[in-house]
């Protein structure tokens, strides 16, 4: 799979683009956990559920973040920027 990978984008390609993709991946992962963890925390405060909604939100957000990383950054992803 790696051998015949044709560069879809002439731009970047080297370390610069690699480092940039790393930052993007990191921001999706942390963003997912932070956003949905925060929503869960709000629900916890509202319903007094004692932390369970925060946990669910963080896991859900991490899953969403991983999904976005795969979709946006995989070599042949359709939504690649």
């Amino acid at each position, binding site marked *: 799979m790696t051998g015949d990978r044709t560069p879809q984008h002439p731009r970047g390609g080297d370390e*610069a683009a690699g480092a940039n993709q790393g930052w993007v991946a990191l921001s999706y992962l942390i963003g*997912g956990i932070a956003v949905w963890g925060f929503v869960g925390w709000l629900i916890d405060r509202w319903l007094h559920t004692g932390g369970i909604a925060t946990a669910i939100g963080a896991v859900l957000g991490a899953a*969403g973040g991983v999904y976005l990383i795969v979709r946006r950054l995989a070599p042949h992803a359709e939504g690649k920027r």
Partner: protein
Amino acid sequence: MTTQLLVPRTDFPPDVREFFTPAFFNDALYPWLTKFTFYVWISVALLIIFFLVAYRNPKMVPTRMQWMAESIYNFNRENVAKGMIGHEGVKFAPYLTTLFCFILLTNLYGIVPGIQISPNAHIAFPAFLAVISYVLFNYVGIRKHGFVKYFRIALIPPAPWYILPILIPIEFASTFIFRPFTLALRLFANMFAGHMILLVFTLGGFALLGANSWFIKPVSLVSWAMALALTGLEALIIVLQAYVFVILTSSYVGGALAEEH
């Protein structure tokens, strides 16, 4: 003790007050004109003079100065602007070069003897640079795609509709909230930590020298050797952070200009 004379004015465990430099010339000017303001003015003046002189009388076979200026510009144009944005990136090359040189020069104060604190160790300067980048990438994106289409590309990833409610808030947070914050914090924290580390080892040397035990006094030499070695590390970080800042700015601009797929 004689060593008492050598002890600097600041207390040994350095704290955040070290980062609030005093007013320049006159206390009445605080906080409008501090040492930081003065350093920033000097770097801006140096940059203007450097590029004016270097390009004043361009030759086919460049002089040393012209060669330096051309190398810096070429690096930003080819590797950063064209590399990250594509052929449209050329028109951003002047801004990216200016940004790179400005951050590099202001960071450099962190290891200049006698100054040894970078204005970027104060959150205001990185924060404003991040605001400029933030406004820039959103502006070029909106100008190219139009308001609605720009946000549709930025916020709606290619995914089945039932996952979108989870993904759109993540996209929104990572693009429009975390980007400017991480851009500013990365530069600020690196410069802040660098200054703090140098302070700890330099002042730590004086603290060890002032110790009562003669077994501890020589250890101050180790502390100062560490301060020297870490100055070398700082030199690396200074260049790296300037590079990372322009790379990420150009990558955000490139992302805003990208067509949907």
